[in-house]
């Protein structure tokens, strides 16, 4: 066993065991299990081929912290509903999103400052409504990588962290397989078929049906016709591997979420949408990968497709964003010689072009938010990056440089040059020291640089200076410990127009709003310590993740520095899952999170023109009460000759704890009315796999 610690993850029995030291880049374990007709992977592919083994194996990555969760373990994690990205939310560095909505709050930053990727290419959203599920079926993925900061120059245009949903390494299935599953919220079907020795096809579909239960109930309670949230997604993947090892990979993702409240039009008496929200997209990702005679991996990928977010509110409020994005990447990669503990010296490199094109249409015409805005913008954002790796015995030095340009046909041009540097040192077999610093830039939102939307062509990219130092230590065969310290400075943040309409991924912002013009006036600081202790043996997985952090913002130079709205000084996730005899498995998760800062209600005023009350907030921040919750999960699996049936009961909030999630207010802002989290939810499901 070689519990080296580039990353720590949650893999269990079904992940192949790690190779012996020195074997890592020569004998991928996939070879051992590959069907006879499939040729071994070329040795040059090993960097990616070992993605699946990052739990216990080692690979060269510039990230100080990259935490990877293989899919096998995700399915049985208590409290995560079998979802891949919800499982990531257990890791250190992730703050708890209020109401459990699908926000990814990474290292004290806003959800819009982090990104979701599919194999390094941008995805518009990661979660369906209310954060119930990731928009991509977990069985289409090989792993989910969580990159909270100081990541490779391969990734750009993001101020904070990343979640990368990875379908690579592209591996053909050993046999045809499939499953059907039903649970409290949705039904899922998945089919994977080997069409030929070199070609496979996988299909999956998912449809929520919580709306069919909730809609009549809510309609009766409210007196409105209610169409509760419903979503569906489809994934299709065609994978072909040539005799020479080239990969052709076509992956289609489609997703749709909708929610509506219907009411009667006061004038016509006809039924109309009172409130409606819709999010949908289709993305086609094409990937080609080959390794040349010199061991250089060439990877070309394109991802393209339309997206839409739409909001309606009666009588005449409507808003939408309809981008059509095309992302193109071409990358060359060559790993340095040997493993990091082989004592070898050599050079590897990564370099590429990363181009984004977009036709971005938007309209925000919701009278309650004042002036309407429209735009139809063409965006071109090319980038180039280079990242050599210098392996000097037990040291890996990985400098990187990324150059970004961002232009619009409305006259805006912005550029960014992001140097980054990582140093990895492997003093002993089970130890690793990681130090990194780098600049990460993010361009303003299209509306912010569109003159017809009161945008400012003079805005520059927001940027962060991220620094981090971490130590990973293996203790014996099963225990791993990781401690990371990070400090991030946020600069040139775009402030202003907080009263304008925008699509929120969570509760709308509260407190005093900055209604001034857009300007690069904002700054921020985030500091934190992350600790991850994981135990993993053949039967048990246990993890303790703790994050201490402090995040502050200053919107304008003459303003006060205040706590960031999602600042959570202490977040703890402790979970354990153990396999028992006769196909049983028992798990539990405990979560604790500090409350979020907020501005208490101080007074109110009345707008006689609209008939609406407006809040007046206190100048001093307070904090909501702390959150804690216990989840318990029991799984039972029956293995048949050609199939497997598994069922589970996941008691979410098993103690029925009443947690205050958000501070709400009465409609007239006379009183605070806390919005509480969900009570005990006995989620259950059945899965039949063959």
């Amino acid at each position, binding site marked *: 066993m070689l519990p080296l610690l580039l990353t720590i993850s949650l893999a269990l029995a079904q992940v192949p065991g790690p190779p012996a030291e020195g074997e890592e880049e020569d004998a991928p374990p996939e070879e051992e299990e590959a069907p006879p007709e499939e040729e071994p992977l070329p040795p040059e592919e090993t960097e990616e081929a070992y993605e699946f083994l990052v739990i216990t194996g080692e690979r060269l990555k510039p990230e100080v912290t990259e935490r990877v969760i293989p899919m096998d373990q995700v399915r049985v994690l208590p409290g995560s509903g079998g979802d891949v990205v919800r499982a990531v939310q257990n890791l250190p560095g992730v703050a708890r999103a209020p*109401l459990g*909505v699908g926000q990814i709050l990474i290292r004290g930053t806003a959800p819009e400052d982090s990104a979701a990727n599919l194999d390094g290419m941008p995805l518009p959203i990661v979660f369906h*409504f*209310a954060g119930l599920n990731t928009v991509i079926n977990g069985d289409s993925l090989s792993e989910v990588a969580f990159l909270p900061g100081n990541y490779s120059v391969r990734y750009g245009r993001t101020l904070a962290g990343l979640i990368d949903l990875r379908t690579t390494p592209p591996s053909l299935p050993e046999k045809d397989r499939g499953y059907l599953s039903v649970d409290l919220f949705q039904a899922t079907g998945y089919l994977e078929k080997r069409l030929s020795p070199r070609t496979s096809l996988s299909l999956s579909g998912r449809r929520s049906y919580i709306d069919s239960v909730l809609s009549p109930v*809510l309609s009766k*309670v*409210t*007196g*409105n016709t*209610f169409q*509760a*949230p419903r979503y569906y997604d489809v994934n299709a993947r065609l994978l072909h591997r040539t005799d020479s090892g080239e990969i052709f990979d076509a992956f289609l993702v489609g997703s749709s979420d909708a*929610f509506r*409240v219907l009411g009667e039009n*006061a*004038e016509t008496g006809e039924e109309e949408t009172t*409130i409606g*929200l819709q999010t949908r997209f289709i993305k086609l990702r094409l990937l080609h990968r080959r390794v040349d005679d010199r061991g250089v991996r060439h990877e070309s990928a394109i991802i393209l497709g339309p997206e839409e977010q739409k909001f309606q509110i009666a*009588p005449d409020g409507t808003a939408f964003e309809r981008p059509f994005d095309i992302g193109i990447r071409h990358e060359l990669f060559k790993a340095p010689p040997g493993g990091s503990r082989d004592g070898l010296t050599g050079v590897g490199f990564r370099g590429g072009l990363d181009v984004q094109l977009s036709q971005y249409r938007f309209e925000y015409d919701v009278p309650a938010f004042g*002036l309407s805005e429209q735009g139809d913008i063409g965006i071109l954002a090319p980038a180039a990056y280079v990242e050599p790796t210098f392996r000097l015995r037990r040291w890996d030095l990985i400098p990187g440089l990324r150059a970004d340009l961002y232009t619009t046909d409305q006259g805006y041009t912005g550029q960014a040059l992001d140097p980054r540097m990582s140093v990895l040192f492997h003093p002993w077999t089970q130890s690793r020291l990681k130090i990194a610093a780098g600049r990460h830039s993010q361009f303003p939102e299209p509306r912010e640089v569109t003159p017809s939307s009161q945008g400012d062509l003079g805005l520059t990219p927001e940027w962060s200076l991220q620094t981090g130092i971490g130590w990973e230590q293996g203790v014996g065969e099963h225990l791993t410990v990781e401690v990371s310290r990070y400090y991030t400075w946020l600069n040139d943040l775009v402030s202003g127009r907080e009263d304008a309409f925008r699509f*929120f991924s*969570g*509760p*709308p912002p509260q407190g005093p709003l900055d*209604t001034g013009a857009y300007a690069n006036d904002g700054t921020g600081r985030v500091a934190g310590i992350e600790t991850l202790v994981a135990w993993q043996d053949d039967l048990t997985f246990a993890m303790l993740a703790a994050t201490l952090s402090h995040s502050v913002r200053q919107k304008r130079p003459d303003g006060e520095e205040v706590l960031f709205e999602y600042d959570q000084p202490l977040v703890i996730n402790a979970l354990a899952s153990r396999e028992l005899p006769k196909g049983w498995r028992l798990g539990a998760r405990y979560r604790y999170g500090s409350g979020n800062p907020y501005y208490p209600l*101080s*007074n*109110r*005023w*009345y*707008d*006689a*023109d*609209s*008939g609406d*009350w*407006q809040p*007046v*907030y*206190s*100048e001093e921040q307070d904090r909501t009460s702390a959150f804690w919750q216990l989840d318990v999960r029991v799984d039972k699996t029956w293995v048949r000759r050609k199939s497997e049936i598994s069922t589970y009961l996941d008691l979410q909030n098993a103690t029925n704890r009443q947690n205050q999630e*958000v501070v*709400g207010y*009465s*409609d*007239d802002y*006379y009183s605070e009315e806390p*919005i509480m989290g969900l009570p005990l939810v006995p989620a259950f499901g059945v899965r039949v796999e063959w």
Partner: protein
Amino acid sequence: MVILFAVLACSGPSDTTRVRDVQIIHVGAQPAELNPGEAGVLTVTVADPSGQGVEAMAWPCTDLGEGCLEDPGAAAGWAQGVELEAEDGVVEVLASPTWEGVLASGEELPFEPFQGTWFLACRTGLCPVIGQALAGDDAALDFLRDPTAGMVDLPLDGASLVRRTVRVSQRTPDERNQNPSIERLGDEALQLSTQGEVGLSFTVLDESEGTLATDVFTSLGTLGPARVEGEEPEFTWYAGEEAGQGRIYAVVRDEEGGSALWRAEVVVE
């Protein structure tokens, strides 16, 4: 999810209709639309359910995002006191003549020209800023310039701040938007036993385009729903457990700045 919570809160009796203390209920404009430089009259209606007395002031403030156009640079002469007769007080307003040039230029504005006025009504003695402002004391200047921020220092109960704007245009009196009118259907006395309830139906007359919205308030019991759209709004008055005398108010607004008030005495035995 947030929308879900918002919608769930939209049915049944509404506490937001309850007038607990001094509260400005309505500010009516006559005419409902002004020409540049034209004077008009605002009638403010202030409920005082406790009967402890009310003091009020008004000051012009047409704020285009950079402060009040009418800011004289000092408190003196900016605010005027509002004398209430029963519940009503009258204030004269003057639409800025500068709008004439703006409107004549044909320049496309991102908003409708308007004249704005703030009203502050407080239980007598509760808001020192009223006395300061009316005395021309510059200690009140920050409040007059940014009254919403100044509300942090005033109590939630007993102080009521309201902003009212009047649209400014070059339309002739015949072309202008007119205030709507509102009448209750039926004339039975609004008298209930405790825990009783009764329906209230209105008819609204208005010639403007757009949706009519009627909000209701009461100093006794509660009403539901708090707002109804359309020309024949219907509400329910829930008497609650408290006996006594009070008032019900219905305020209708069109989408062009016109408004009207209906009110009645109510009794719970």
